[in-house]
Every structure is written in C-alpha cells, then in structure tokens.
C-alpha cells in the first residue's frame, strides 16, 4: 500500500472522492466553484449547502455537533410549561433532508408483515379522515445527561437539556392502524423517515426505530403535523412525524413516510448493538459487555426526573427575602407523585407544590419558596418521586455502555447575600 493517500484509489469511488476533497479542503466546497464537481457521486451533497436549523433557535443553545445536528438548551431556557420550538433540543442520527418537501404530495404508507394489506394516505387524507388530537408530550433523548457518566461513553455528551414538552397535534396511530387492519401476530411498529444517512449512501438508513404494539396503540401516540399550533419546523420532522411521549425520543421518527407493522421486534437501524439499550444486569463502570440480545434490553419508558428551570444557576439573592424557585418533573409512562428540594445536599428535604399534568405523558410544574439560614454558597437540589415510589438518585446512576438514562438530581448554585 502506498504512502500517498488517495492518489492510488480510483477517484470514482466514494473513498477516493473523500480523499481528494480533503486535498481541495472543505472551504473550497463552500465556494462558488466546486473542485472535482464532475467527480462527485450523484448522491453526495457538500455539507455547506445544508439547511441551518439554528435560525429559529435561541442564541443560548449549545451546539454539540452539526453533522449530524445535535443542539440543546441550557436548563434555564426550559422554564415554559409548554416548550417553544426556539428552546427545543434537536437530535439527529442522520442528515436533515435537503430535497424539497411538498406537503400536498407527502404520503404515509402503513405496511409490514402484520398488516392485512398495505395502505397509503396523503397528508390531506390523514387530516380529513381521522379525528385530530392535541397533547402536551415529553420528548427526551435517551442519552440526556450522558455527560455525567464516568468513564465517558460514546454518543453525544448531552448535559440535561435534551428534553422538551410541547403541544403536538395529529391523529392517533391507533385510529390509522384500525383503518388499515392489523393481524393478530403484530408485535412492534417500525418507522421510516426521509433523513439521509450521514454517509449519504441512499441504501443506508440513518435511524429506523419503533415501539411495541401496546405503546403504539396508546391514545397519546400521535402521527403529528403541528407543534404548538404551527407546522412542525424542518429540523423537527416537517411535514409529518411520530410522537411517542415518555419513551426515548428516538422512537418519535421524523420526516415520517412509512410505518411497518412487524411480527417481531423491529430490526431497523439503531435497534441493534447497544443503541438505545442498557445491560440487563448491573455492570461495573467501564465494563465491556458483549452486544447480544441476552445481555441488553431496549429502553422503554424513561425514568423519573426533574429540573430547576428558575432561577438560572449562579443567582445571587437577597437573604432577607424568600426565593421562589420552580421547574418541571416527569416520569416516562408514569406520573410524578412528589417533588422535594434540598439546600443542604440532601440532609433534609422540603416538599414542593406540584401541579397535575395537562394530560397523560405531559410534564408537571413544581414550585417552592426557599429561605436561607445565613449568607453564603448553597446548592439547590430537586428530586422527584414517581407514582410507584421510585425516586431520583443524587449520585450518577448505574453506568451503562451507551451512557443512557442518567436521571440524577438536577441542582443550581445560589449565593445568599446581605
């Protein structure tokens, strides 16, 4: 093998192109003329031409990556009861579609081994033929909080902002599936969207996950075309997406064009290995676990969790006045029974006020008033308990190879000053 890179490869294959493009530099790709334009494989599109999903977003958002796009808000931006799109995290496994999208011709096909016969609906059919519903639904990345795990795991190092609770409007998947007709052997649904794979290889699927039939047939599982009363923005799945509240948001497929009703657990991209899976048995931090179905289970409901969304961490407050604090709490498929706060590192806990959810699978608002005994540095910790009595750990929970399900208590730093 030669020591000159790329020159010995035929330039027409992908690898050859990539090596040549590196010589040309990506900066050149962004310019008006594209070096080797005639040699670019037909499906390859330089990154510079992609859509900018940050345009509608708060300038305070943290960009974890732009290829694929992964963006999260700092926790204090999540103060609204209903998350505005401008403060909603973006999670992608593949690329945001660049081909023009025409909602008038967009279709959803329901197929798979366990449909009586495949059926295709236009977006307009869905809106006209089925009753629309609107729900506030928590969508949280399975890897939210991954940055807290030591040793570090693969995947985006999300802090605690990869969660939203917006108002989604669409039709119930169960209504569509009833119209199509499902066989008795149906086990799972799997979605397919139009997001290209990172490699831009059209034969590769970026992500194709799903949920068991029981979750698919819940009333709140929607095929949605609107969020907070508006069309879904492109980066969140325009014009159609699946919305599955309370489960890893990777089950809520974007740019949705097909749902397969499977007679087995769906085997699409990101259903394999340790993707969105955790070891069945507790493992030592850093331990190697063979990625077999015997060792791993697919994450279903997300665990109980809470955030302090006001004030922003770092608040210097007047010690003479009580400090009003607030935030949200949620618990996957369950509801939150109690929320407590502590200003002494968990030695004592005070019960907060807690409101019921707007609907099942929506997050709940909590609030409290704090008095600080003397001037100084405090950490305000919040801890939610679900309706089965399961509570959040203060320490980082069970390490796992994918860095999922970190629901450790959130905290903010506060200085009480005279």
């Amino acid at each position, binding site marked *: 093998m030669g020591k000159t890179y790329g020159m010995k490869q035929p330039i027409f294959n992908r690898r050859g192109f990539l090596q040549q493009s590196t010589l040309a*530099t990506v900066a050149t790709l962004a310019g008006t003329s594209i070096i080797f334009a005639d040699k670019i494989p037909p499906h390859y599109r330089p990154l510079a031409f992609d859509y900018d999903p940050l345009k509608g977003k708060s300038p305070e958002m943290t960009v974890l*990556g*732009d290829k694929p796009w992964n963006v999260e808000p700092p926790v204090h931006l999540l103060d609204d009861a209903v998350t505005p799109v401008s403060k909603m995290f973006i999670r992608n496994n593949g690329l945001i579609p660049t081909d023009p999208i025409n909602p008038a011709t967009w279709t959803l096909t329901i197929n798979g081994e366990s449909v009586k016969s495949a059926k295709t609906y236009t977006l307009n059919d869905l809106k006209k033929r089925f009753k629309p519903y609107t729900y506030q639904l928590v969508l949280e990345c399975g890897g939210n909080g991954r940055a807290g795990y030591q040793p*570090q795991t693969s995947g985006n190092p999300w802090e605690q902002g990869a969660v939203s609770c917006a108002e989604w409007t669409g039709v119930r998947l169960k209504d569509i599936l009833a119209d199509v007709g499902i066989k008795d052997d149906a086990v799972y649904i799997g979605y397919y969207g139009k997001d290209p794979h990172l490699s831009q290889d059209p034969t590769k699927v970026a992500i194709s996950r799903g949920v068991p039939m029981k979750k698919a047939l819940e009333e709140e599982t929607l095929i949605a075309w609107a969020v907070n009363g508006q069309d879904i923005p492109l980066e969140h799945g325009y014009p159609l997406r699946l919305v599955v509240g309370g489960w890893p948001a990777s089950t809520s497929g974007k740019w949705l064009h097909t749902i397969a009703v499977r007679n087995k657990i769906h085997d699409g991209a990101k259903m394999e290995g340790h993707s969105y899976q955790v070891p069945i048995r507790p493992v030592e931090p850093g331990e190697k676990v063979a990625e077999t179905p015997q060792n791993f289970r697919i994450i279903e409901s997300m665990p109980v969790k809470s955030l302090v969304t006001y004030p922003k*961490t*770092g*608040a210097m407050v007047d010690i003479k006045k009580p400090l009003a604090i607030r935030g949200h709490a949620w618990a996957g498929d369950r509801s939150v029974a109690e929320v407590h706060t502590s200003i002494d590192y968990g030695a004592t806990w005070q019960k907060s006020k807690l409101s019921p959810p707007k609907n099942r699978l929506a997050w709940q608002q909590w609030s409290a008033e704090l008095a600080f005994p003397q001037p100084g540095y405090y950490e305000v910790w919040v801890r939610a308990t679900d309706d089965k009595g399961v509570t959040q750990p203060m*320490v980082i929970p069970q390490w796992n190879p994918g860095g999922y399900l970190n629901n450790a208590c959130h905290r903010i730093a506060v*200085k009480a000053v005279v």
Partner: protein
Amino acid sequence: MNGVKIAFLLGALLIGLASFRNNSVTQYSSAKPPFRADTLKKDAESGLIDAPNLMMVKAQCTACHSSKLILQHRFTRAGWVDRIRWMQKYHKLWDLGESEKVVLDYLETYYGPASMSDKGTFRRPPMKQVKWYKLEP
C-alpha cells in the same frame, strides 16, 4: 539459606512489581504527557489540534461526521479502535489500512483520557464555572 533465597526472590519480585506500577504511572505523566488542548494550535475549520497528521484525520474521519464527535471525547487507543470498528460495522466506514495507525496515533496523543483530576472521580463533582449574577426580584 533457602529461606533467605526465597525472601530475596520475593523481595525482588515485589520491587519489580512496584517499579512496573510506577513505570506505568510515570509513563502517563512524563513520557507521554497528556497534551492540554488549549495550549496547542488548532485547525480553524475543524477545531482539531493542528498536528502533522491532521489532514489524514480529516480525510478519514471528518469527511463524514462533525469534528465535534472527536473533540467531545477522550478515549484510550483501545477506545478509539472500538469507535472505528463500530463505524465500520454500522456506518460503512472503510478499512483504513495503513492510515489507521496514523489516525490512532493522532487520536491517542491529543484526544486520550486527560488526567483524572480533569473531570474528577466524584459521583457528583463540585459545580464548576458558575457565572454569578444578581437576581432581580
């Protein structure tokens, strides 16, 4: 006599083990100092450390994905090999051939695990970089 011999051998073995341990520790901190990313020149486009084999890393890695997938992680050489194998298994990454060693040398040197104090071995480390502000009522 035999007892003395055994004690001597045992002692030598213990010293050997101890020095081996020391070696592996000192190798980490002196022979191979963990480079501080903020003291080295960075490539403006990718944010990656501008070192001799940067172009190879860009050709093999960031042609397909964001450089942040490297910048955000600190893995051992074996850890980086795992990432490459995973991308080869699931994401059509090609066989890197001889350039794999070059890429791994670069990643191990500049993006290996920092000293343990960097992130702390705490289950919840002290809060860092708090930006204090006066909260107006």
